[in-house]
């Protein structure tokens, strides 16, 4: 009876079998990596804004405090976006006819809001509150990164659930004295751990069990 297969057929079969296995594993690893990639998390991308606003310029160069524009950050869930007239408080004097600021002037003139693209964004079913985080000594930089060095604003951290949980499971390392919350240059003292423990006590930070209870963020 004539041979159906060549001599190498067997080796091919094995190769294919192994290949399939490796491919499956590879596929899983790729998916794993992709889910953590900057692309998927929309990190470090600067969307096109109506006005090329530079935090670097306003915060670092001009030394304007975060709260000047994000005025409700301590009193409300939302940090609050500056109303046009807030921009114009300065820009009615400075750069009064700079081309880039045209949309701002137009907005004031036509009494029509400027549509900014949101950069730091959590899903609708996540109820994040700025006020409590500020009150408990969690600095802007913890979530927003070195925004004071951003010529154009981008998302610095991957806002995955894990990112929130890491902190809620062990807040101490992420705490600082309340008066340093807006200070991007703040350097933790050598005994950061001790400081963390102290602040945990002083600010009555809840237990991880309470902080990680689903109802803390989801309703």
């Amino acid at each position, binding site marked *: 009876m004539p041979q159906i297969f060549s001599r190498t057929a067997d080796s091919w079969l094995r190769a294919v079998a192994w290949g399939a296995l490796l491919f499956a594993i590879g596929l899983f690893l790729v998916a794993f990596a992709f889910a953590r990639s900057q692309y998927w998390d929309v990190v470090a991308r600067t969307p096109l804004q109506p006005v090329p606003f530079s935090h670097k310029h306003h915060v670092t160069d001009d030394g304007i405090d975060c709260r000047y524009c994000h005025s409700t950050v301590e009193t409300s869930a939302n940090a609050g976006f500056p109303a046009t007239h807030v921009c114009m408080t300065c820009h009615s004097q400075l750069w009064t006819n700079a081309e880039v600021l045209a949309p701002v002037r137009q907005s004031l003139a036509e009494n029509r809001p400027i*549509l*900014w693209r*949101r950069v730091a964004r959590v899903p*609708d079913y996540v109820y994040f509150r700025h006020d409590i985080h500020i009150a*408990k000594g969690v600095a802007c930089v913890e979530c927003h990164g070195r925004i004071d060095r951003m010529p154009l604003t981008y998302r610095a951290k991957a806002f995955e659930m894990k990112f929130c949980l890491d902190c809620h499971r062990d807040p101490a390392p992420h705490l600082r004295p309340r008066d340093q919350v807006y200070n991007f240059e703040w350097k933790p003292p050598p005994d950061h751990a001790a400081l963390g423990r102290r602040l945990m006590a002083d600010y009555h930070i809840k237990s991880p069990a309470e902080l990680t*209870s*689903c*109802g803390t963020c989801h309703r």
Partner: protein
Amino acid sequence: MSGKRFWRSVEEYQRSDAFSEMLKVEFPSIFELWTVDRREVLRVMGASLALAGMSGCKPVRSDDVVPFVNRPEGLLEGRTDHYATAVLFEGHAQPVLATTSGGRPIKLDGNPEHPAFRGGSTPFMQAAILDLYDPDRSQEPLFGGHPASWADFDGQMGNWRAAWRQNQGAGLRILIGPTTSPTLLRQIAELKSALPQARVHLFDPLTGYAGEAASPLQANIANAQVIVSLDDDLLGPGPMQATNARAWGDRHGDLDGSGRMRLFMAETTPTQTGAKADRRLGIPPSRLPTLAKAIAGGGEVTLTDSELAWAREARRALETARGRSLLTVGRFAPADLHSISLQVNEALGNVGQTCEIAAPLGFVPQAGDSFLDLIRDIEARRVSALFVIGANPVYQSPGDIPFAAIYAKVPLRVHAGLHVDETAAISNWHVPLNHPLEDWSDARSPDGLATIIQPVVRPMYDSRSVHEVLAALSADEVPPTRDIVRPTWAKQIGDETAWEAALKTGFVAMAQQAEQAAAPVTSATAPAPREGEVEIVIRPDPTIHDGSFANNGWLQELPKPLFKTTWENVVAISPRLASELKIDSGDMVRVDSNARTVDGPAWVLPGQPERVVTLYLGYGRKRGGRIGTGIGYDAYRMRNAAQPWNCTGTVRSTGARTVLAATQEQHLMDGEVEGLVRTVTREHPSARREEEREQDSFYAKWPQGKPAWGMVIDLDRCIGCNACVVACQSENNVPVVGKDQVARGREMAWLRVDRYYAGDPQDPETHFEPVPCMHCEQAPCEMGCPVHATVHSPEGLNLMVYNRCIGTRTCSSYCPYKVRRFNWFDYTSDAPSPTEAQRNPDVTVRGRGVMEKCTYCIQRIEDATVQADIENRAVREGEVKTACQQACPAQAISFGNLADPESAVAKQRRSPRNYALLAEQGTRPRTTYLARIGEKSDGE
């Protein structure tokens, strides 16, 4: 404690055999091929509608931020504001506190500072917010049914004004709906002086067409220790429901019965008041006067033994509590009864204590200006122009007045209202009115206080206030509404600071001039039925009322307190008559009276007087909006102008059957309800049973964390009014799913009020039991979920994480209380604009395929917790109020921290009346109940 057998409907009482049930249950299934298409009504609602003014120039993407150009003073994004104002019910003010978020009103609650309402609310107050966002509201003036502009209308108005100035307004008639607005009354007076020939008629279908005045006695049950009510549904729907319920709550739920109120109720058809009464008597309307005489002690009367016994006891009770008792008579009762109650109360020295003689608060037409007079004048061609303002006579006229035809005889017909309704449809002009929340006005609450109604949102459409429309009749230049309202109060509230204060507190004291009571002219005595006839009682619908709420999805889907049916009105019929006529709930019956008939689904109603049939108003609308149109039957057709509330006639089965969308299952066996609703007496106050003692468990007890949230519901206070249900729906973005879905057992209400009966179906005990999630410490639902979508919080909440739920529905299968609700379809995304604007931004809007349930209003808990946490303190007692608790007018629900022994809820937990639902299941619920206090306990 056996002996008392509970049951919930007559079918259940008279068992039907398994086989016939099997047929009923199994066989329709195969044929229901394409019926899956749910909520046809709401699908129509899906037809979106561009919002005038709100349609943006540039599309706003989901991740856009839209900051202010100028931030309004004091507005905090992400926080809510509260404004004291009022909504209207039968023209009366219902003082509310409106919650707005980002400038849009999202919730209404009773105004806690109002001395009479004290924060209590009714389903109607709660649901009024949805009427504001009703997609079917009239949005522009119509001329002959075609869109026109206010400019056109004003132009016409100019010419008419000129003419009226000539003839002093001869031929000009105004037909106005019930109102208590001091400003409106002022304007009417001014109009009359400007145009002496013009006449203003009142159209008030709920008081009477012949210009009847309401009862001269203004009951104030707060001081009453004994109340004998002759068909007066004190606790049922009405402008005084919230205030009465509050008084009721204050005088109940207290084991040492010193302050307890005793209630005698003689009713011609079962009501909530009857359900809660200590002594209830069902009596046909024709015998009510006799009963009244018996109480007044007026000579020989012919009554049945039970009626006589009731009358004697009532009489005795009234006398024992002289000065603190009250004999009250329902608005539906004939005139002589009102005079009887006046005499009796005066004799007992109750006047001034539990009731006073009060002049009517609302607009009362002068003699000869009733609706019937208007009809006469139209027939006599004396009416050249008729302005119908805030009324819908074409729909609400009695059957013996063909108003549509009569109306057509008026040359100029102008209708002003919120909707393009039946009347608007056949008017030359229709002009849209503002919703009370959109503009300035004022009105008086039934207790006599006035509320200045301030707008909480800019008018959404091109509409005007009723004041502007009325002013335009005589004035060429109409000032903005505020400037019309403000002068009314110029004397009383001079300076602006006082004005601001009045707005802030939400009420203004107002003298209620009490002269001698005018002899009330109410409808004549109910006719006695001839042989083979039944007495027909006509009442407003329990949730749709006179039909003005027909397009309100929340109220349509709200189970009627006693029937638990939704989306249509029924014909209530007594169990005996039903078995006599071989009628079952859901069978179509034809009611025939004076050669006028209606067909409606029968509802066998325990406690209904034997030969009495009750019809309910408010349905059968022809132009009631996209969901209010064409459902139910129109009972107005059966009314007689002379006698709106009673008639006689016949009832028979048509042989047809309909599927009623009832939220409580009908066919049940006896005994199953034992122990679910409990009654104790002052002598034996313990509701807890021997076998329910705290038992050792293999499971670790749930830590009583700080705080440990818990709820206690007092069944002695609960009046089954459903305010909590609507409040929950409005607070938690609970969708309306439509009749078909409710009929399939898919209603979404997180909080339901179960209704149970006990005893003889002819004269049963009725029990109400609100059932929210029990937040079990040993929750069966939690162990079933494969993805941790329902878990327990350290504070003892049974959390439901919608965004984690994959919809295995194991939790609901395991839940012994069946309080979980499932999104079988996408119930939310096609809700009609602008109703989404009402949604609470702090509560996730659930999508298709996820489970949902009561959360104890976690958004409120979180708010309070965070606030307390920022201030480094614990949450204070009373800082967190759940929506249901806040709404409850009878204070039946308390919520708080069980770990704090001083908290109200912890105290109530220690009451002997405290018991848990299905305690034997070992679920250790955080929600418990306080047993009802009765004169005999379950055992006896």
